[in-house]
């Protein structure tokens, strides 16, 4: 059935194909496009922030609008750009790396995407409906509970819906990696990117429910008059801080671990060596994931939890630097003595090592609780987390896109444009954020709308703003590169980098069943093993046979649309109770879809052996 749809070429069929697809490779495209667009929106917000701060006493934007920009920049970048782009890469790569034909729950995979998208849309609707969220991406109570208008309601409902999508995505990847590995693909033979995807998914599973609860409490306080964070009713706003950071700190590792995985794969491929210290890398990844849950209160050193709590959390936080250091050294030793190719993907990986190390170092400085009373809520913290998030996560995403673009689309991104992107972005990044360390140490608080003249903050802010424009240029060149490549670049083979792992053993882009015959994995870097033994491809684990594939479905889209509608009902019922009808309508749609899904059998379909043989002859 899906092949029939694919053969019809019309635009309507194309859209319908993507609305209903359950193919992890197409869902990766959806995540890439949506996450990429939100990345541009978040970048635009950042530019407006930096224009406002380009000189003292500026009034380029109003104070209220500045708060909205700042809040939406952070929220968009974390939840709507970085997370979905990571899911894009995980969807595109993980099933191929473990030799699977699809994920464990193709239907839920699609549902996860649509929930994220509709949540992101709700969040951004605030711009057009009387004001965006303005209480910071951390939405601390009671600022967030008393913020007037509906801005913060959009934050609450938007994140609730997209968070549900993320949770579903996390469970899907957990089960995929545990249950769907090809024969011989033991845990200790999994490529490091797959390992990090596994640990990240675990973190998602155990971290996101805390945010879910926090958002529910905030929602009840704002929309239904409960008093969780309302001191006059006996409430306690510190509860929000705990719930937010119990989610929030694991979240930063959710973001960075897949990037670590990308760099591990990229560095090993382009050094032509197996990853140095593979076992230690796996160990460090899981250790980071584990420790990530024990350090949340380092964001609350200044809240007043007391010296005992602060000391414990300070030491736990510093401990994370140990496995992180292990990783840095293993990457360096992977390069050591390797036959190194330097191309765009590799440049991002090489640029990452020193940049991230700086971010890790300032992290350990911040972890010293006594010193953090000085650093907290200054630009020093802003510099720290941009060094780890941009220098780590964003560099990782760029590396991943350059590395796996040929696998996803069959074409290599233009190398010249790729290098221009890297050098402008890399320079701009350090210009923007390095100087912010010093602005912070000089006492410039974060999140302020303006700064005063004559306090030696002018030059630093000017430099920082110039850097931001360089980063924007780099990002634009990347977009140009994508367009140029899809129009001009020639098709490449399935294995343009002389790769080591399973994804490079199949055509680019892969057929929708990925592997015609399930591969037999005989060690770490399975494709490399076969190459060393003089074979061209992977040894199959089974004879050619019918392939079972899942059916496409429109239900995930409608289900998410239902929640989108209900979200508006929840937000506006405080103004007028008749909006409760929207809640009923929306929830009705969603629950109706769930019921349909439950009672209608969906057995999937088969691709027949004869058709596979025909396709093989054509290739």
């Amino acid at each position, binding site marked *: 059935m899906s092949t029939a749809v694919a053969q019809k070429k019309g635009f309507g069929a194309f859209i319908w194909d993507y609305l209903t697809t359950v193919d992890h490779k197409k869902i990766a495209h959806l995540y890439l496009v949506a996450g990429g667009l939100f990345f541009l929106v978040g970048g635009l917000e950042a530019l407006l922030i930096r224009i406002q701060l380009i000189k003292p006493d500026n009034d380029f934007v109003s104070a209220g609008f500045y708060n909205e920009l700042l809040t939406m920049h952070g929220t968009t970048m974390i939840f709507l750009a970085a997370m979905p782009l990571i899911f894009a890469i995980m969807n595109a790569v993980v099933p191929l790396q473990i030799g699977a034909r699809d994920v464990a729950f193709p239907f839920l995979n699609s549902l996860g995407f649509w929930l994220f998208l509709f949540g992101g849309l709700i969040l951004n609707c605030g711009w057009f409906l009387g004001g965006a969220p303005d209480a910071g991406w951390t939405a601390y109570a009671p600022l967030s509970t008393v913020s007037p208008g509906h801005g913060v309601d959009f934050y609450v409902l938007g994140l609730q819906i997209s968070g549900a999508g993320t949770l579903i995505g996390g469970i899907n990847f957990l089960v995929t990696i545990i249950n769907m590995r090809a024969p011989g693909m033991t845990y200790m033979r999994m490529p490091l990117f797959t390992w990090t995807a596994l640990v990240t998914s675990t973190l998602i599973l155990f971290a996101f429910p805390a945010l879910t609860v926090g958002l529910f409490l905030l929602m009840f306080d704002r929309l239904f008059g409960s008093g969780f964070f309302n001191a*006059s009713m006996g409430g306690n706003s510190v509860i929000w801080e705990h719930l937010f950071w119990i989610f929030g700190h694991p979240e930063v590792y959710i973001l960075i671990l897949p990037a670590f995985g990308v760099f591990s794969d990229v560095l090993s491929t382009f050094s032509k060596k197996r990853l140095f210290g593979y076992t230690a890398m796996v160990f460090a990844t899981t250790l980071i994931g584990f420790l990530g849950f024990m350090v949340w209160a380092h964001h609350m050193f200044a809240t007043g939890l007391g010296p005992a709590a602060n000391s414990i959390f300070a030491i736990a936080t510093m401990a994370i630097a140990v496995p992180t250091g292990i990783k840095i050294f293993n990457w360096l030793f992977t390069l050591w003595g390797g036959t190194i190719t330097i191309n765009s993907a590799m440049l991002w990986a090489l640029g990452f090592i020193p940049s991230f190390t700086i971010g890790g170092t300032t992290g350990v400085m911040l972890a010293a609780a006594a010193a953090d009373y000085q650093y907290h809520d200054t630009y020093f913290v802003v510099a720290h987390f941009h060094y780890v998030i941009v220098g780590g996560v964003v560099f990782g995403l760029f590396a991943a896109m350059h590395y796996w673009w040929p696998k996803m689309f069959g074409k290599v991104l233009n190398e010249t444009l790729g290098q221009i992107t890297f050098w402008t972005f890399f320079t701009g990044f350090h210009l923007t954020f390095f100087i912010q360390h010093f602005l912070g140490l000089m006492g410039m608080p974060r999140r302020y709308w303006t700064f005063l003249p004559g306090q030696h903050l002018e030059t630093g802010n000017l430099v920082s703003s110039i850097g931001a424009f360089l980063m924007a240029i780099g990002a634009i060149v990347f977009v140009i590169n994508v367009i140029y490549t899809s129009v001009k670049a020639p098709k490449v083979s399935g294995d343009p980098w002389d790769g080591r792992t399973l994804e490079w053993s199949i055509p680019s882009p892969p057929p929708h069943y990925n592997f015609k015959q399930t591969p037999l994995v005989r060690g770490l870097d399975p494709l490399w093993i076969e190459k060393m033994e003089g074979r061209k491809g992977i040894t199959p684990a089974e004879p050619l046979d019918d392939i079972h594939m899942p059916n496409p479905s429109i239900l995930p889209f409608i289900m998410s649309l239902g929640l989108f509608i209900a979200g508006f009902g929840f937000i506006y019922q405080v103004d007028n109770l008749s909006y409760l009808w929207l809640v009923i309508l929306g929830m009705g749609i969603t629950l109706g879809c769930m019921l349909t899904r439950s009672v209608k059998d969906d*057995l999937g379909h088969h691709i027949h052996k004869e058709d596979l043989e025909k396709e093989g002859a054509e290739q």
Partner: protein
Amino acid sequence: MSDQTLNPETMPEQPERATLEGKNKFLGFWFFLGGETVLFASLFGTYLALRNSTNDGPGAEELFGLELVFVMTMLLLTSSLTSVYAMYHMKNNSFGKMQLWLGITVLLGLGFLGCELYEFYHYIHGEGFTLRSSAFGSAFYTLVGFHGGHVTFGLLWIIALMVRNAKRGLNLYNAPKFYIASLYWHFIDVVWVFIFTVVYLMGVI
């Protein structure tokens, strides 16, 4: 997946895990319950932090009586047991008995829900104790209400499965569905044991 593979002559020992889809559902649902555990843990933490913040309104000692809650606990614990019987019959491939025990499970669950609604009604109209009374009120209704919402969802789910499969009986496609619904039911039961202890017992003692 053909009809034959889903309807074998003899049912395997663990019909819920006999197919890859079944295995995935089984594992995925366990993970989901892991996430649910964090969800309820967060709610319990919030409740513990706020349980004395009564804002001069009624507190736990004045409100809670153990008689009704004891009945509710018995209803829900028994329903967990009956769902175990249902799964036992599923593994023996006796569909009729499975449906029967699931039906009893649903009735017990409905009984529990009825008691809970009566309890809430009594607090709200008898005692004037609501979500908006105090931070304690907010935490109480949110924690217990989330559990009640889970019970409601679980009942609708089990009923839907029973109705849908009433005519065609058990096969390897729906066995995992029944199985994870019963897992969900056990989970709800375990959460209730904690609510009984933390909210009610610790509230009156």
